[in-house]
């Protein structure tokens, strides 16, 4: 057993909490964790693996949510094809963004993605209101209707989300060890050298950005169906900010770390907010302390602790 496996175990415990606890307690929380996890798993491919800080992922997330809602509610599509379409649209928008944004790097990339997604936010709230319901959003987003199972029950929906979560985790894991993942890591550590070796840096970056857009789109669609609602708040840049916080808290560039970040973030929202209305400020403090003291997040902390407990057990 190594620290990777320890983290996997932690994640497994968290996501299986509804099965372990009596009466399926905490199910609403875990469902939200599963959905946001799909988002951060994809986001970390861009942020952690490829080293690009995007402040625009809220756009893909929100657009996915609107796609699913409109297709199921207005066009009468089935849920699963609509969810697929949410991913496709999220990915397509990411591809469009990447044509503008990949040409610049570093801070400019962050600002340009922020600006582009803010443009989508403004459009959704005003000019596209016939489609989006404007600032008030669209209520009554459905859940899947499959095999005669009642997914409106959170306990059943949990299994649906769990299946998608595992799928997302597998895909992301495969991408990480694939030639694409390796190439992106090489680019992150030294862009110039990677280019000299013969990698097409732009194209690789564009691919991973698009893939993460698909993850974000699917996750947005799922969130809309979880809360039966979609609104422009999902497109706001603070949503992108929340995701960055989650990934950084958990540990960027690791497969399981960001999921732990989501779990902590959502748990604080659920639990700390009942204790104090100042929870966002406390979250900010924790975030600052972690960013300074622990750039590798919880994943880094666990690895460190593990190495200390089992000095020889490094695998």
């Amino acid at each position, binding site marked *: 057993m190594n620290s990777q496996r320890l983290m996997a175990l932690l994640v497994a415990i968290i996501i299986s909490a509804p099965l372990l606890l009596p009466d399926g307690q905490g199910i609403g929380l875990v469902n939200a964790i599963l959905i946001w996890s799909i988002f951060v798993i994809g986001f970390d491919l861009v942020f952690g693996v490829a080293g690009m800080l995007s402040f625009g992922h809220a756009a893909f997330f929100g657009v996915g949510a609107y796609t699913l809602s409109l297709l199921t509610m207005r066009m009468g599509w089935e849920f699963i094809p609509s969810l697929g379409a949410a991913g496709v649209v999220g990915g397509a928008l990411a591809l469009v963004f990447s044509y*503008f944004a990949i040409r610049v790097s570093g801070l400019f990339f962050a600002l340009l993605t922020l*600006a582009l997604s*803010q443009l989508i936010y403004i459009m959704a709230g*005003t*000019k596209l209101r016939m489609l989006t319901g404007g600032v008030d959003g669209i209520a009554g987003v459905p859940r899947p209707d499959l095999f005669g199972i009642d997914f409106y029950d959170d306990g059943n929906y949990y299994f649906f989300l769990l299946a998608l979560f595992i799928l997302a985790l597998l895909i992301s894991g495969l991408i990480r060890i694939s030639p694409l993942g390796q190439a992106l890591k090489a680019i992150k550590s030294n862009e110039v050298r990677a280019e000299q070796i013969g990698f097409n840096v732009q194209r690789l970056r564009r691919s991973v950005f698009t893939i993460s857009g698909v993850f974000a789109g699917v996750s947005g669609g799922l969130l809309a169906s979880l809360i039966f609602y979609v609104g422009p708040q999902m497109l706001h840049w603070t949503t992108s900010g929340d995701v960055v916080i989650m990934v950084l808290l958990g540990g960027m560039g690791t497969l399981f770390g960001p999921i732990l970040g989501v779990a902590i973030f959502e748990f604080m929202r659920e639990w700390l907010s009942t204790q104090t209305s100042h929870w966002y*400020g*406390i979250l*900010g403090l924790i975030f600052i302390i972690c*960013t*300074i003291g622990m750039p590798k997040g919880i994943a880094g902390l666990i690895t460190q602790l593990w190495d200390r407990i089992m000095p020889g057990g490094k695998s």
Partner: protein
Amino acid sequence: MSTIVIGLSMGMLLFLLAAGLTLIFGMLRVINFAHGSLYMLGAYLSFQMVNLTGSFWVGLAVAPMIAAIVGALMERIALRPVYDRDHVYQLLLTFGFILVLDEAVRIIWGLEYKQMYPPELFSGAIEMFGSSVPSYRLFIIGFGAAISAALFFMLDRSRYGMIIRAASGDPEMARTLGINVSLVRTGVFSFGAGLAALGGAAAGPLFPIELGMGFNIIIDSFIVVIIGGLGNIRGAVMAALLIGMTRALGYSYAPSWVDFLTFILLIGTLILRPEGLFSRKGRTA
């Protein structure tokens, strides 16, 4: 004609809001996401000063000083440990400060809206070109111009400016020349925070003072900084005026498209000239 005067005042106000951000951005390469929160802090502090002393001018002078201390603390405690890491970490830290500063303001001043009025001297309206222009708007134009001139002089012409530019351009070299680089960094961040608060104090009489006010201006400020070019004070002035005029015209003819127009300007700049429309670097490089 009056549209031009108003556009000018909107532009100068935008410049006042963005000046602190562009300074920190240019000199430290840090995108200060907490800029909006410092702006809000400035407005609240200024409100508090007006309440205590009854004078707008005291607020305008003291609020930036307190915010500058807050800025210096932020830099010392949080940013200093991460200068040798990727710039991304500095950006993220300032993001964390949004949450902390907003919470602090909420704890100190509560949830109610606060209000401030223009000083006696600028409380009326002046008849100009067939409309009545609030004289506080004219004050904003003059004040913005004065601040931009002062900044320009300080950074481009004075000894302090030279030291700051040396420290930001090549920290190692500056160190060997005996410049205390870390002190300069603290100073610049603190000064930028003070400028943000100055913007808040100046904007206080025009907008409601409330907890969401920082979120409203941070994007505006980014836009000014990007279009003007990184840390380019002259560029920021030009960009602010350009946006102010665009908006003023937009409001005259198609108000609901104003935000959209601004973003088109921004995205166009980022695509065509990421270094900024008014950047000299682009031409010499």
